[in-house]
């Protein structure tokens, strides 16, 4: 049997100042397979993809496409070899339609007139063939994230790509969307396309891959057939040690006081849309309360209401017995509510500030970081940072580099370290492991559990059911701004939770 190879990498090496991003990487991708490249953040996956796509040139080594040696100088060369890439961050123009976005750069028709009808017809055909369900007339600005991703796929299909590269495509998707996305990839494979897929989410990797190549610190650890491996082995290959992300033993908590209690909290936007609809919730000391739900069912508003970013229309929010509805954000934080926000770039960090400065953000005006609420003590800030850097294993050259230069996992550690160092009574964590690799994920979850074991209350918002199930003590399910039910995490199944997330009670 002769196997044909679409992509072969032989001893690819790429060095950046001070680091070898790719160290003699050798990978063979068979024609018509889904080949997954797995590895932690910073392992060198993206560099390798950019080399294949022609954005970087390797320092050593040789690339073969369809068993012919190639030397790509730019992405133009790789596109000519029918390679297409869907980047993690979409490259679409929101104001243009789907069709316009797809043809931009190589408009069909004459120089004076774009052949719109022809282009739209082809796009429609492609969309139907691969089940992408995209209307070429739609404006990209009006599309959801999933749909925009499909437009990106259409774009490379329109350019007749045979080899499709996906750079962490599922990082931006919800669990339901990931399932649909996997079906699309399987459909593409069925029609003969070769797919190179980057991910570190084990569930989807195991679902769709034929081969899996694991990279760690710029080196290939190994390539395995999906049928001959399992999640534990892959994780060990990626992280280099055993990782425990499954259910944790938990401390017994009985008759603990309510730290945080929401009574009938409602919030309406534009006078008609009820984002929060009579929320009742109790968070006890020494527990992790997971909030499960499909994205957009009021989680964001619930966090904002508790932290003081919005004022509910009605209801009470009791923190240690006091109604805090009228208190400002800073007053709430100072009284003991800490927040790990969902979007660390937007809400968690000032990326231009140093790691040290970020580690006191929100506490910067208090002793010992500022004297008399006025004079900053950068020595104290620096000292605090070095302590937290050690405690939370924040990896950076030193604490004076801008936070923006760190990897996502280490940025998240800054946020977690800061919020934990406030020594809060209640820690609210919103999607705290989103976009993190397994090692960082484990660390973040461990920190949450440590807080719980210290007798704090942890409110965990997550779209990942696995995370909710493995970290929470109790789980509240939110649907259309209401709490459907609160259940003990022990003895509830994914299926039951999934049903509740769509609005039906556990017992129904």
């Amino acid at each position, binding site marked *: 049997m002769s196997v044909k190879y679409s992509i072969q990498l032989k001893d690819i090496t790429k060095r950046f100042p001070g680091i070898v991003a790719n160290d003699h990487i050798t990978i063979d991708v068979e024609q018509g397979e889904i080949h997954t490249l797995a590895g932690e953040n910073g392992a060198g996956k993206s560099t390798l993809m950019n080399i294949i796509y022609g954005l970087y040139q390797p320092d050593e080594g040789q690339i073969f496409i369809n068993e012919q040696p190639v030397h790509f100088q730019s992405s133009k060369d790789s596109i000519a070899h029918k390679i297409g890439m869907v980047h993690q961050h979409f490259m679409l123009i929101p104001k243009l339609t789907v069709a316009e976005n797809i043809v931009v750069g190589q408009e069909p028709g004459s120089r004076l007139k774009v052949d719109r009808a022809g282009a739209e017809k082809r796009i429609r055909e492609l969309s139907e063939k691969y089940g992408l369900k995209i209307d070429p007339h739609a404006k990209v600005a009006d599309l959801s994230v999933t749909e925009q991703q499909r437009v990106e796929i259409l774009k490379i299909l329109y350019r007749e790509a045979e080899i499709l590269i996906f750079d962490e495509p599922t990082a931006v998707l919800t669990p339901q969307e990931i399932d649909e996305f996997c079906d699309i990839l399987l459909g593409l494979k069925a029609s003969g396309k070769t797919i190179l897929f980057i991910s570190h989410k084990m569930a989807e990797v195991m679902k769709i891959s034929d081969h899996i190549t694991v990279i760690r610190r710029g080196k290939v650890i190994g390539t395995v057939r999906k049928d001959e491996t399992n999640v534990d082995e892959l994780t060990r290959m990626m992280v280099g040690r055993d990782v425990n992300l499954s259910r944790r033993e938990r401390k017994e908590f009985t008759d603990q006081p309510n730290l945080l209690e929401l009574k009938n909290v409602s919030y309406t936007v534009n006078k008609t849309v009820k984002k929060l609809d009579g929320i009742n919730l109790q968070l006890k000391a020494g527990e992790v309360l997971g909030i499960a739900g499909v994205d957009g069912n009021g989680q964001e508003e619930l966090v904002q209401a508790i932290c003081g970013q919005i004022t509910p229309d009605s209801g009470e929010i009791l923190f240690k017995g006091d109604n805090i509805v009228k208190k400002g954000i800073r007053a709430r934080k100072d009284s003991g509510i800490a927040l790990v926000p969902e979007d660390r770039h937007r809400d968690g960090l000032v990326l231009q500030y140093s790691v040290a400065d970020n580690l006191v953000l929100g506490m910067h005006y208090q002793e010992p970081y500022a004297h008399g609420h*006025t004079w*900053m003590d950068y020595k104290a800030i620096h000292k605090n940072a070095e302590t937290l850097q050690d405690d939370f294993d924040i990896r950076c050259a030193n604490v004076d580099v801008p936070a923006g230069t760190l990897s996502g996992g280490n940025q998240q550690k800054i946020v977690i370290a800061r919020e934990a160092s406030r020594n809060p009574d209640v820690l609210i964590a919103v999607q705290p492991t989103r976009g993190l690799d397994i090692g960082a994920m484990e660390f973040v979850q461990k920190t949450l559990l440590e807080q719980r074991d210290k007798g704090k209350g942890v409110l965990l918002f997550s779209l990942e059911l696995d995370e909710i199930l493995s970290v929470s003590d109790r789980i509240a399910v939110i649907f259309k701004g209401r709490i459907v039910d609160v259940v003990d995490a022990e003895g509830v199944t994914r299926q039951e939770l999934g049903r509740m997330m769509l609005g039906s009670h556990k017992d129904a």
Partner: protein
Amino acid sequence: METKVKKPLFALDKKKLQETGLSLLITLIALVMALVVGALVIWAFGSNPIEAYGALWRGAFGTGIAFTVTLGKAVPVMLTGLAVAIAFRCSVFNIGAEGQLLIGAMCAALVGAYVHLPMVLHLPLTILASMVGGMIWAFFPAVLKLKGNVNVVISTIMFNYIAQYLISYLILGPFKGPGESPATATIDETAQLPDLLPKPYVLNLGFVLALVAVVAVYIILNRTSLGYEMRAVGFNPNASRTNGINVNRNMFLALLISGALAGLAGGIEVTGSLDKIVNNFSANYGFNGIPVALMAHNNPFAIIFSALLIGAMRSGSAMMQSSAGISKNMVDVIQGLIIVFLCAEHVIRYYIKRMGGKKNA
């Protein structure tokens, strides 16, 4: 162990240094390009650019007296530059430094002329009045922003016009001093800034005050929790808000401090050299604060140098006009060109990188 800690620190310093060097290089390139294009314009009008620039240089630095004039001319733009910069660091575009300067000057002129006190009290009070005046003029746009979310760029521009016509009215009407021409009464000698150097040199205490303001702004921005918050708001208002920083309050304060600095510029003009307010006394000092801040990348200490550059062009332009026969307004053209090329920072950065990349390849 010790070397392990020290090494990355050194690497950072080098990187920081490189970045600072690059910024400096870009500013210099913009400057040179502005002068080159300016030379072309001069040449196109039939004059000799070398002669013109030579005259400009002599006018600004040729003699000791000329040099003190340059220093003096740098004072108001140094202060308005600081005003623009401190607001900008907090993401507030204060285009109203001109109006704040005018009102500040007016307040100083009134306190200087109508309040009579010994110098130790009168001079500080007059200077203080100018700062309060500028602050009040910034207060209105700040409140409009806070209560009605009115765009600060628009409101501060509008308040420039209001200030300008208000001043015209005041010096023609209620506060017209003795004499034929429209002007306020001359301020008391107790309200006049003492000279630093004997005549014929023209340099007064205002220069020292401006340098003090530079240090003060640096301290506010980099050593106080207010500065920490203002810069955080400037970089990322969302993260600031989420972490308990009151974004509106910081922007409000930034605009008030900015107004006070611009007002101080007006106060120093009145107490230092004008002695009274005449029509159109400000040679766009407020607006010139914008290129001064831009050239300095909003860094207080760098503003000293960018203000000196603008001051040199202001003081040299007279010589350029008289000896090379080129209109004084040519320096406005060059200033405009500097802004254009500075705004092209990213383009210049791109070409520097590309050249650097080729060298490495």
